[in-house]
């Protein structure tokens, strides 16, 4: 756990202290983002989120940051850490190999304040692709109590169901930066997740939704979405597989 320099300076070696640069910005009052520097000490296991909370606790209570589970499950604490979108709770200071850690709000999201961003667009696009099983027999009335699936069928989509909606992929996407109507890698990966599910019958509906001028075809396959995903999901691959359905290579 990080400690305040003034409290623990005597026991700390210089290698255990870093400068945490936190972006401060309130759209209602500020014209531009500015950075505030805090010197904090850390242990090998200290995460960036813990460091931010330490600063918030002892130096600046006004820092706005969203977090919840602290174990890379809720997807709340996504931010740009040293230039790359990451989960603050899943990023240890020691693994960044830098004496200066810069934290900024995620790109391609409207800023609420400081490190907290609005998720409306992410949730809207996620909802748009119908992220649920569409099946005539969804309400089971017969003796059948489950939809059986083979391990091979599960393998088709299982990695895509690990998405925690943290928004890091959308933050890293270059098309999201220029096209405000683009569906985004998160929603497209989720569209693939359900299209590839053998229990789902909504393939045509979903393909129709993403087949517009700001849909799947605007992906440039930069692949940055897959590089930043903390859960090992590969949205870029999902998008290419979806294109296979649309071009007739897959059925």
């Amino acid at each position, binding site marked *: 756990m990080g400690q305040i320099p003034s409290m623990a300076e005597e026991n700390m070696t210089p290698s255990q202290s870093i400068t945490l640069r936190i972006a401060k910005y309130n759209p209602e009052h500020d014209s531009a983002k500015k950075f505030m520097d805090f010197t904090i000490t850390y242990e090998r296991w200290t995460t960036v989120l813990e460091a931010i909370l330490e600063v918030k606790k002892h130096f600046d209570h006004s820092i706005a940051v969203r977090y919840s589970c602290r174990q890379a499950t809720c997807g709340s604490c996504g931010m740009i850490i040293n230039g790359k979108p990451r989960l603050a709770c899943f990023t240890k200071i020691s693994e960044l190999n830098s004496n200066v850690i810069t934290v900024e709000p995620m790109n391609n999201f409207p800023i609420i304040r400081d490190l907290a961003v609005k998720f409306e667009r992410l949730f809207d696009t996620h909802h748009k692709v119908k992220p649920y099983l569409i099946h005539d027999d969804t309400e089971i009335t017969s003796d059948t109590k489950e939809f059986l699936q083979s391990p091979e069928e599960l393998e088709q989509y299982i990695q895509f169901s690990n998405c925690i909606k943290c928004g890091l992929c959308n933050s890293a996407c270059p*098309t999201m930066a*220029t*096209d*405000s*109507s*683009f569906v985004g890698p998160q929603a497209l990966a989720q569209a693939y997740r359900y299209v590839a599910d053998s229990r789902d019958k909504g393939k045509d509906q979903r393909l129709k939704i993403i*087949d*517009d*001028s*700001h*849909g799947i*075809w*605007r992906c440039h396959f930069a692949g940055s979405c897959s590089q930043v995903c903390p859960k090992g999901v590969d949205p870029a691959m999902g998008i290419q597989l979806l294109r296979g359905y*649309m*071009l007739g290579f897959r059925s």
Partner: protein
Amino acid sequence: MRESIIMKIHYGTALAAVSLVAVHILMRLTQGFSESLQYGSVIANYKFLPYAGMLEIILILLSIHGFNGLRVILLELKQGKTYEKTVSYCCIAAMIALIAYGSRTIIMVNTGMI
């Protein structure tokens, strides 16, 4: 038209154009490069109808592919219904104008106007 159909045309025109441009370049290799650009040689090519037809097809393929590519780039730069419709129609108009202008040369040569 659905975007998937437009993109199928986009990819198809790219593949076809690459093949035909390869044939076009190979045809240039049958004579010296500078010789192939001489006035008489160019006119002769236009008068040879199968070759002129291939040049016309290349022109159409590249115009469709190029202007659709431009449309896609412009749609990414800015959004809005009016803007998007304007961009789409302008690209189609420019594509038709370019094809018409390119075809005009072949037609003029073959009707004896040049």
